[in-house]
């Protein structure tokens, strides 16, 4: 893992940032070669949280692997569920038949997840640079979202709520009222953050013209999500390669051309507002109906049916033990996650388990572009660049 650096003259120093540095958002070791305070070369080292999730997936049925996706990007576990489940549905060929209500519930959950993830990003990013107050405000709003998640599926961090074929259960009573309350309450709160940071002189000094990456480099380095949109790439998978019910919803994709930390900050702030808009539309449009597809060969049947019907129970045993029969073939599905594009590549040989499952994790690719961003900058800028890339190591190291 180590890249060996040699010091060329007296002015040069080699500094280790991490792996236990609180501003590295997990376990990133960042080796920096400095000339005075300027960065000459740097090498991010990852892998401290490697758990072999891709290897584990080869030994699991498609349903069994679903909870593992929660453990990738644990700040937006719903979005991970969605990306994985949509990939499997694409493989099974049932992605067009998912009931509309289930689709809307998924979008609601995913957009809430996006807001929650961006709130944690804003909180920690500001905290790293020295603005403590924002942290407390952001976690106040995140609490609302976690409470809603707890209502829907009983968990606050790892949900396993979005399942192959729909969602685990329909929304509980009172959820929609709470959601209505939230979408009303959130935009004024977002304004509060803007008043705290957007025109704050210290904030501007720490973020403007820091961590610059051009449009061409952003594409060439494969950076995804809000980070590319901060460099002027007008690309959002929800709009450009639409999935689920996003085509029916009306939202804008914020794009800024500056390519620095401040632009990425503005992109994410605007995205939260757009997510709120999507939620408002979902409240209006969500139809009644089933929350799970009626395809007994692929999904668990309802409990009542299993208890009353002998054959259904036998089939259930086979599905649980051997896994669902997926057609042979390979698919890739990428979803727009808060961190960027989370994709799943599944190679199936027609058995109950994936032959190979590759996770295209946005954090991993975004970190690989870090040396390009910090080159020539000051060592203190590393912290703001780390904050603006917003990575999570559960996802980066898998």
């Amino acid at each position: 893992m180590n890249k060996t650096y040699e010091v060329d003259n007296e002015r040069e120093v080699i500094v280790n940032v991490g792996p236990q540095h609180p501003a590295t958002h997990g376990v990133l070791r960042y080796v920096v070669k400095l000339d005075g305070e300027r960065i000459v070369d740097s090498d991010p080292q990852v892998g401290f949280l490697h758990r072999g999730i891709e290897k584990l997936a080869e030994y699991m049925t498609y349903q069994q692997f679903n909870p593992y996706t929660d453990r990738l990007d644990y700040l937006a576990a719903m979005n991970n569920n969605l990306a994985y489940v949509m990939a499997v549905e694409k493989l099974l060929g049932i992605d067009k038949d998912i009931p509309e209500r289930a689709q809307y519930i998924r979008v609601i959950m995913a957009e809430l997840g996006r807001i929650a993830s961006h709130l944690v990003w804003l909180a920690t990013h500001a905290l790293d640079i020295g603005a403590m107050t924002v942290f407390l405000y952001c976690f106040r709003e995140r609490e609302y979202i976690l409470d809603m998640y707890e209502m829907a599926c009983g968990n606050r961090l790892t949900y396993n709520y979005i399942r192959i074929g729909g969602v685990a259960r329909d929304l509980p009573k009172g959820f929609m009222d709470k959601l209505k309350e939230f979408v009303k309450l959130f935009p004024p709160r977002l304004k509060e953050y803007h008043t705290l940071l957007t025109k704050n002189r210290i904030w501007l000094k720490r973020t403007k013209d820091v961590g610059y990456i051009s449009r061409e480099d952003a594409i060439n380095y494969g950076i995804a999500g809000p980070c590319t949109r901060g460099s002027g790439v007008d690309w959002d998978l929800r709009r450009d390669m639409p999935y689920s019910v996003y085509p029916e919803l009306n939202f804008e994709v914020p794009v800024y051309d500056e390519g620095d930390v401040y632009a990425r900050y503005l992109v994410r702030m605007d995205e939260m507002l757009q997510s709120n808009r999507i939620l408002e539309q979902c409240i209006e449009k969500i139809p009644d109906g089933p929350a799970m597809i009626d395809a007994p060969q692929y999904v668990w049947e309802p409990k009542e049916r299993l208890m009353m019907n002998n054959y259904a129970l036998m089939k259930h045993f086979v599905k649980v033990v051997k896994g669902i029969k997926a057609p042979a073939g390979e698919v890739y599905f990428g979803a727009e996650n808060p961190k960027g594009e989370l994709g799943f590549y599944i190679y199936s040989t027609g058995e109950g388990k994936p032959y190979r499952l590759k996770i295209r994790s946005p954090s991993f690719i975004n970190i690989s572009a870090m040396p390009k961003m910090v080159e020539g900058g000051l060592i203190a800028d590393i912290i703001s660049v780390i904050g603006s890339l917003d990575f999570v190591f559960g996802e980066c190291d898998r």
Partner: protein
Amino acid sequence: MTNEELFEKIKSKFGDYIIEHDTFRDELSVTIKKEKLIELMKFLHDDPELQFDYLVMMTAVDFPEREERFDLVYELRSIPHKMIMRVKTRTKEDEPVDSVVSIWNSANWDERETYDMFGIKFNNHPDLRRILMPEDWEGYPLRKDYPLKGKPEDDLWLDKHLPEGQIKKPRHTRMP
């Protein structure tokens, strides 16, 4: 451009080198001989009608029973034309493949990971070393013949790296 047109375009130029092609779930995948990989990638990247400027991901799939053991998979996307396609190539265990880092920088870490997990070497890669596993690890974990719970030899690695004085045994029992 539809998948058929896209394939015809590739076929007209690289027809002799295409091993197989397939369209599954509206995704075109083309398997090409590895000698022509870089040429095809350059063509896909630079052609004004295609402009596959974004390498979504690359990885490998292991088929231990085949002579050409590994499938290398490249997911490409064209941002200007909103197209996707998949390029695949095949290689033997000990034969290196040309690196595509000169075309897409995002392949840098992906190829390092593929090397780390499968042991496939890449020609002209700027910095090919392990990325997720420790640098002195032996074996390649994502190969099909690597057991899920690790090999008994892995204990030696732990013995080497645990700090002095730490109780080394009993460790968790491994399945045979």
